[in-house]
């Protein structure tokens, strides 16, 4: 069967499966919408949480970035899993005991103030919309390949489908649909990885294959990869850090506390049956997330090896990478490269006119590699590969069967759509309930509230799709910005609300605003005001990464420090929270007396 037909078939079947399950589950019980986790086994709940959590950034973008970054890419792996330890211990059980449904509700009640709740809504919206911009970038990549169009057209199509999915689908909250999405997504990720690990090392398990020897040799895969990439002038794969050790440290920290502060992740733990379950369900979610996350570094390293091996025959055979006949002839380049050229995300340009493709780092500081390239008559790197295509192109690069390629397309779409829909739900709840009903129009009808929610979803999609056309970075990089925003604004406020009885509303509000402002200031200086191209103001802060070499994606941890410091300073000079609030905090700290969450929030 034709590749394109197979892709349509597999993607179509996967969507039929989700819709089928949604219809079947719905017929049983519509009333349990909010208590979706109530009657579901914690393991199932963990799978659903994992599907919700793993987005286009995890599925499509992350391994590609790791392939580019090497060792430094580990910050995504540690950051996006280590946050679950914080979530499980510091927030989830207490928020579950508190028994409300949204983050702004918790902030508003704990800090006895509608203004605090409104500040929380602003933080939540900023983080969520930034997150969706990253998703849209990923959705654009997936659809552009799926439909064979440019990535811009891919984004327009994606916007439409995400809208339909979120507004009319209502699949979110139906746990079994998400379980199905998880299964599609994880098969789509691991099957090609197993194939490729077998091809390269003869070891089926990618987690072990990455640490094994190349098939038929006694050189380990990582050692060979280090050798190939350093020869071609790139940084050594297993040691190249992300900027600096300090930057990697704060970047990882930022992703970890951002994970624990993201509203759509926290929301999942409000609806588990008990405090006890809130603790362990984070563990189960992490088990299912880790299946993908421990496979990703293998996908990254092996894809990088295969990519180099595709354009340079000396990678597999050994010998001189700079020999004239080692680079493949452009005419004989594999079909998958031609397919991706259509999307504009992979480009080939014959700079030295020899009809062959040279892929190397032409800006290298490695004098040896530079001399070799010049001696070989190479006139610059001729192949540009967008990092976001690595995972989707991976099975094609390894020449795997068509059904595997189709499965990966289905998995990428499932990941992108489920998370985008989840975030849109969080946005619509925050706008319609926490903002419109609580603050502006307390007597709005239920119908009006629903309409406000849908309008806010549509607005969020249009804004993020438009900004996604000129994204501030790769999908995973943009999503990292969202984590930084959540880390600097929401996480400290929630944590202080639980762990400090004396923290008052003035302190919490000042902290949130200061953390958010500082982080946005630094991010916008690099990426433009509200991510609009051309409005960046780098000279004002003294050039890129001027704060100790810290990149904007990593700045959330600094913002969180500012948040804590400002909150405690303001708290010192303003009056204590009232007695009943301090009692409430004490009650939140013990599990006994937990009640089912009031669904009609």
């Amino acid at each position, binding site marked *: 069967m034709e590749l394109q037909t197979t892709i349509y078939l597999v993607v179509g079947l996967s969507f039929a499966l989700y819709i089928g399950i949604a219809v079947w589950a719905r017929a049983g019980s519509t009333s349990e919408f909010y208590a979706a986790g109530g009657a579901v086994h914690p393991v199932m709940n963990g799978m659903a949480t994992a599907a919700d959590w793993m987005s286009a950034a995890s599925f499509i973008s992350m391994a590609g970035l*790791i392939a580019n970054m090497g*060792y430094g*890419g*580990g*910050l995504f*792996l*540690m950051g996006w*899993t*280590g946050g*679950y*330890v914080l979530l*499980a*211990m*510091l927030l989830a*059980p207490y928020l579950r005991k508190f028994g409300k449904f949204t983050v702004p509700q918790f902030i508003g009640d704990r800090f006895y103030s509608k203004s605090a709740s409104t500040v929380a809504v602003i933080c939540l919206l900023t983080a969520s919309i930034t997150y969706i911009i990253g998703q849209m970038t990923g959705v654009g990549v997936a659809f552009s390949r799926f439909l064979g169009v440019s990535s811009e057209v891919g984004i327009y199509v994606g916007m439409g489908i995400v809208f339909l999915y979120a507004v009319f689908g209502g699949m979110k909250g139906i746990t079994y649909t998400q379980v199905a999405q998880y299964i599609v997504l994880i098969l789509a990720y691991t099957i090609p990885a197993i194939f490729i690990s077998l091809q390269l090392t003869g070891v089926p398990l990618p*987690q*072990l294959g*990455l*640490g*094994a*020897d190349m098939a038929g040799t006694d050189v*380990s*895969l*990582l*050692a060979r990869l280090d050798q190939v990439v350093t020869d071609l002038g790139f940084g050594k794969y*297993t*040691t190249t850090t992300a900027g600096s*050790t300090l930057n*990697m*440290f704060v970047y*990882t*920290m930022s992703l970890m506390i951002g994970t624990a502060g993201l509203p759509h992740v926290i929301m999942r733990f409000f609806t588990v049956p*008990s*405090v*006890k379950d809130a*603790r*362990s369900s*984070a*563990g189960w979610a*992490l*088990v299912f997330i*880790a299946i993908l*996350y*421990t496979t990703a*570094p293998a996908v990254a390293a092996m894809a990088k090896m295969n990519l180099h091996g595709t354009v340079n025959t000396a990678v597999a055979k050994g010998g001189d990478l700079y020999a004239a006949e080692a680079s493949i002839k452009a005419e004989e380049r594999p079909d998958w490269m031609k397919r991706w050229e259509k999307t504009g995300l992979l480009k080939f340009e014959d700079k030295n006119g020899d009809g062959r493709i040279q892929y190397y780092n032409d800006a290298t500081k490695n004098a040896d590699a530079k001399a070799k390239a010049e001696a070989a008559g190479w006139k610059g790197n001729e192949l540009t590969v967008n990092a976001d295509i690595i995972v989707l192109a991976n099975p094609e690069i390894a020449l795997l069967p068509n059904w595997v390629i189709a499965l990966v397309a289905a998995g990428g779409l499932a990941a992108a759509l489920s998370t985008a829909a989840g975030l849109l739900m969080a946005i619509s709840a925050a706008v319609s309930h926490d903002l419109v009903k609580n603050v502006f129009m307390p007597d709005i009808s239920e119908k009006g509230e629903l309409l406000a929610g849908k309008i806010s979803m549509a607005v969020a999609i249009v804004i993020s799709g438009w900004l996604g056309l000129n994204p501030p970075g790769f999908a995973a990089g943009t999503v990292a910005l969202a984590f930084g925003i959540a880390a600097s604004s929401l996480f400290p406020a929630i944590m202080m609300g639980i762990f400090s009885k004396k923290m008052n509303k003035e302190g919490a509000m000042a902290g949130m605003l200061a953390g958010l402002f500082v982080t946005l200031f630094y991010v916008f200086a690099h990426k433009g005001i509200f991510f609009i191209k051309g409005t960046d103001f780098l000279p004002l802060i003294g050039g890129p990464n001027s704060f100790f070499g810290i990149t904007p994606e990593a700045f959330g941890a600094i913002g969180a420090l500012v948040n804590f410091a400002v909150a405690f300073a303001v708290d010192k000079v303003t009056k204590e929270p009232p007695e009943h609030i301090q009692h409430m905090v*004490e009650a939140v*700290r*013990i*599990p*006994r007396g*937990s009640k089912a969450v009031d669904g009609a929030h």
Partner: protein
Amino acid sequence: MQHDSSGYWKATLGLLTKILIVWFVVSFGAGILFADLLNGIKLGGYPLGFWFAHQGSMYIFIILIFYYAKKMGDIDRQFDVHED
């Protein structure tokens, strides 16, 4: 025993501190600050520091959460504040 809420909270914070130390040591310690040092040791084909950053810390995170859930359950019962 329900009145000993400060004892309960102290026990909780003690457990959290222990776990956070391990959490920090495996990721920020072995995976980042001391990665170069550990890379001298090999785990199969993996340099050890690289392994902690790309594999090991994630396995340990999972163990930490389940350990926490179990120990917290014990503390709940010890101070008689568990759910029914």
